[in-house]
């Protein structure tokens, strides 16, 4: 499982490896027991609240079970066949993928550019307040920000339509117009999460040792050379982690869309998280929704593994 060694990515392995080897030979059985004992609380939580529900979900995926319609019936792989053959399911999947790719691309692009811009701001007057205002969108509860934007997108009195009107455009009912609803939701997601990528970029830039930057100054490296040879080797882990977290979260966007459009108009913004919600709690089809969830979990784990594998390859190179 060496490919998954994310957290130690930045640590210098050699001296520590030796130290632990020494400690290892000296450690008694008692000490090894203690090490395992320290893990127990986390493992108990993990087993009760993650492992059991996950197996429950896997199990349910093989049953035909709709709440209020009798006992669950074992149907083998039927649910998965239905999912595979359902055009609607594929459409939801494509829609989610499109949303994820566009949102993450904008957030990473904007976030990195603005992160670089804010990098030299250490002496800026009121920097702390400015960064607080900048980071606020990402701490607004998604439910609340869905509400905010619903108010601002309002066709008759919303401020955005007032601006549209001001520039001579036709008023647009953003959240019920089939052509506008996806860009409108994307804009909100980008507004919320670009600050997170700015934060990750600042953290990544902060992890570059000052001494190396000064050396680059002395050597008069160009901006490109600096990024390529000084910043990237140190900062890539944090930046890529940010991209990974954003990708996973964009893939599961739910709260925001649920409050803003409820998946509509029609199913235009019915992304996977929202579709699962509708399936489970509007039609109470627990068997099917568990099967979908299982497929999603497998996709997400596969993507993450590939991602970590690639990240580790670039390290060992």
């Amino acid at each position, binding site marked *: 499982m060496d490919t998954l060694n994310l957290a130690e990515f930045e640590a210098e392995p050699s001296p520590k490896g030796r130290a*632990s080897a020494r400690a290892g030979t000296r450690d008694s059985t008692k000490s090894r027991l203690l090490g395992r004992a320290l893990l127990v609380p986390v493992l108990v939580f993990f087993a009760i609240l993650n492992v059991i529900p996950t197996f429950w979900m896997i199990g349910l995926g093989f049953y035909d079970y709709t709440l209020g319609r009798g006992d669950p019936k074992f149907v083998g792989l039927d649910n998965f066949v239905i999912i595979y053959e359902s055009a609607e399911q594929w459409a939801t999947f494509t829609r989610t993928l499109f949303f994820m790719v566009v949102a993450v691309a904008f957030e990473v692009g904007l976030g990195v550019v603005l992160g670089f*811009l804010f990098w030299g701001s250490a002496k800026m007057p009121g920097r702390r307040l400015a960064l607080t205002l900048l980071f606020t969108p990402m701490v607004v509860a998604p439910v609340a920000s869905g509400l905010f934007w619903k108010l601002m997108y309002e066709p008759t009195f919303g401020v955005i339509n007032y601006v549209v009107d001001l520039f001579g455009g036709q008023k647009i009912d953003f959240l019920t117009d089939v052509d506008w609803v996806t860009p409108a939701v994307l804009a909100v997601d980008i507004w919320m999460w670009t600050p997170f990528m700015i934060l990750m970029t600042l953290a990544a830039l902060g992890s570059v040792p000052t001494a190396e930057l000064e050396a680059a100054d002395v050597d008069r490296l160009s901006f490109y050379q600096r990024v390529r040879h000084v910043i990237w080797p140190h900062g890539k882990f944090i930046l890529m982690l940010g991209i990974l977290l954003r990708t996973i979260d964009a893939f599961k966007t739910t709260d925001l869309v649920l409050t803003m459009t409820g998946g509509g108009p029609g199913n235009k913004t019915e992304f996977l998280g929202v579709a699962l919600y509708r399936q489970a709690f509007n039609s109470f089809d627990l068997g099917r929704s568990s099967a979908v969830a299982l497929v999603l979990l497998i996709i997400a784990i596969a993507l993450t593994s590939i991602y970590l594998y690639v990240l580790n390859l670039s390290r060992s190179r």
Partner: protein
Amino acid sequence: MVSTRQTTSGRRIGYYTALWAVALIFFLPVLWIMMAAFKSNDDILSVPPKLAFSPTLDNVSRVLEESSTIPYFINSAWLALGSVVVAILVSLPAAYAFSRWKFPFTNFLMFLLLSTRMVPATAAVVPMFQMFNAFGLRGRFGMFILYTSFSIPFSVWILKGFIDGVSERFDETAIVNGAGRVHVMLKVVLPQVKPGIIAAFIFNLIFAWNEYIFNFVLGDPNTQNIPFGMSVNLLSAGGNVDWGFVAALSSMYLVLPMMMIFFFQRYLLVGMTFGTVRGDV
């Protein structure tokens, strides 16, 4: 000489102005809602939108008088604060163990922990819903341990990163001098990873403070939090949302997270470096 200095300081001013402009653009939507919190409903709905208005505390007082608001706030507070504190208490020993005893299964377990983030909440909530009903967990205790379990993976990840950054020489020296492992963990390592603990605390607090789906589906009146209250307000209102009320409620709700990022800003930045940076970012 003088003229160059003047142009550089001119450039500085331009640069800082640009940064402030970026920050304000991102903040503008929130500012709009905060203004709405002090407007009368007529002013909120007026066309053209009013920038100058006579501020009123009417919305705020309606929020405070509404009988369900205070319980929502109390539930939000104890659920978020309590669960995050317990999660960190549980995660610290595990992170220390992962960092110091290099178990062969460490990476696999760390990956499993991260994998809990990958399931959409709406997918995980289905089996949770059944499990909670089957074991009668829908209530304070059930929600509390659920929220705790949400905060554990990220805490373990951040803390392990920070503990990895503390040289094992410290542990060895202390042990040679007769200290026990637990003593080393609490008295030698813990003080050096405070930034990591604070970062884990803030990130998880913000998440728990904003959590909606699980609360909505699994909660009962003893655990329902503000995001729940906001959505109920919206759903029950149909077409006639009381925008002044919603704006006031969400503005008040935003005060805590905003204070967190203002006062603990450097820990947010240092936290996301996962212990690779000791100083300021």
